[in-house]
């Protein structure tokens, strides 16, 4: 929130830890700017703030629908897309492995947004109940799976992650 700025033609962002300069067209949203720069995992589902396919994790604001965010407002921000879930060696995150193992993804269109909703939840709540997971997915529309496997996958991933159990519960 530094000084005023008007109609900048580019913004500096840090996407999944990599600094990047994003060109922005006047009046465009973060979703549109990210996709033009090749970040195609940020899906354009409904383009009106309902489906959650364009979810990103935006700095301190946390989980956000990028189709509702003016790109110009993101200068200096950290942006996490689903690629940010991979570890340094490019291995899948436990959330992603559980989604694969449990058939929680079918057509896949909604999945980047769903995974980020799950990831955001696990940052806030390391031992989420089924109800908390359903609530966290309330802003994602999936037309294929019926959500059941997604909820189970998030719960299973939570159990695998460190800090999921009280510290006294033994080794890991």
């Amino acid at each position, binding site marked *: *929130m530094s*000084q*005023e*700025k*008007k*109609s900048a033609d580019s913004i500096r962002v840090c996407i999944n830890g990599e600094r990047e300069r994003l060109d922005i*067209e*006047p*009046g*465009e*949203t973060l*979703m*549109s700017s990210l*996709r033009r720069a090749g970040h195609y995992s940020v899906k*354009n589902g409904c*383009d*009106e*703030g*309902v489906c*959650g396919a364009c*979810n990103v994790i935006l700095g301190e*604001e*946390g*989980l*956000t*629908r990028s*189709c*509702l*965010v*003016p790109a*110009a*407002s993101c200068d200096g921000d950290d942006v996490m897309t689903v690629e940010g879930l991979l570890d340094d060696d490019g291995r899948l995150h436990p959330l992603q492995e559980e989604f694969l193992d449990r058939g929680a993804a079918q057509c896949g269109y909604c999945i980047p947004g769903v995974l980020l*909703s799950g990831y955001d939840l696990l940052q806030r709540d390391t031992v989420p109940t089924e109800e908390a997971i359903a*609530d*966290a*997915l*309330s*802003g994602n529309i999936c037309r294929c799976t019926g959500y059941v496997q997604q909820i189970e996958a998030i719960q299973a991933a939570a159990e695998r992650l460190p800090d999921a159990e009280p510290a006294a519960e033994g080794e890991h």
Partner: protein
Amino acid sequence: MSNQLPVEYVEAESVDAVLELLAGDSETRIVAGGYSLVPRLKDGIETPDRLVDISGIDALRGISRQDGGTRIGALTTHDRIAASATVRDHARALAEATDSVGDYQAKHQGTIGGNLVVADPKYDAPAAVLALGGTIVVRGPNGRRRIDAEEWFCGPDETAIEPDELLTEIAIPDGARSGYIRTSEYSGYAIVSVAARLETDGGLVESARVAVNGAKPYPIRLPRVEETLAGGTLDDERRARAADAALRDVDPGTLVANEVADGRHRLGLVRSYCQQALERASVSPAVDS
């Protein structure tokens, strides 16, 4: 997919800076969470020349106790309001309304100020603020203006704010039981929502305020329902009679009708949810004023 928002975008650092921008020639809209405004821009419902982003003005955020009531800054998000012990203890209907908001992101990003400025029939906070007798505070070129919720919601797509004014906070008075309930469509928006506020003395209702959103294009009070309740006891029979009175409070000719629910359906929902809101308010804890 580009050029859906105005070309000019400004981040404002203070309320004074916002007022200066609003006083200019450009047609300006305020953006905070973006959940009300941006979809309207994309649909072409509004076509301003300039966006002024107020999300960095921290003075507009937060919940506090003030003058025998609760003060909520315009930028406070629904999830913060829903989680606030202060709001739960002193303005329960608003806690319940903000807790009902659509989905996680909308709750986490959407602000009470944006919700009240747009005051869509699908929104949750309007009926609660109206039933609770809230005051909406705006600042403009001539200083501060305090507007009763009743005068605030004044027509379809219309609130009492002037184009050169900024909503800065809302104030909710203490001293009543209250409750809120709604029925929602698949997207998580409300179809019909009802909030009730009851001043009670023992089992007796001294006065009642009941408001509905989603019946008419803007939230309204239900005077016949309120009259039926005043001076009576809070029993099932009285609540049922009060809910029946709702049918006479809503002019069938002006009911909202769309692809989600037609007018007749909405009228049935008003009665049913009126009764449920009264039940919730009657079992809610009494507030010491």
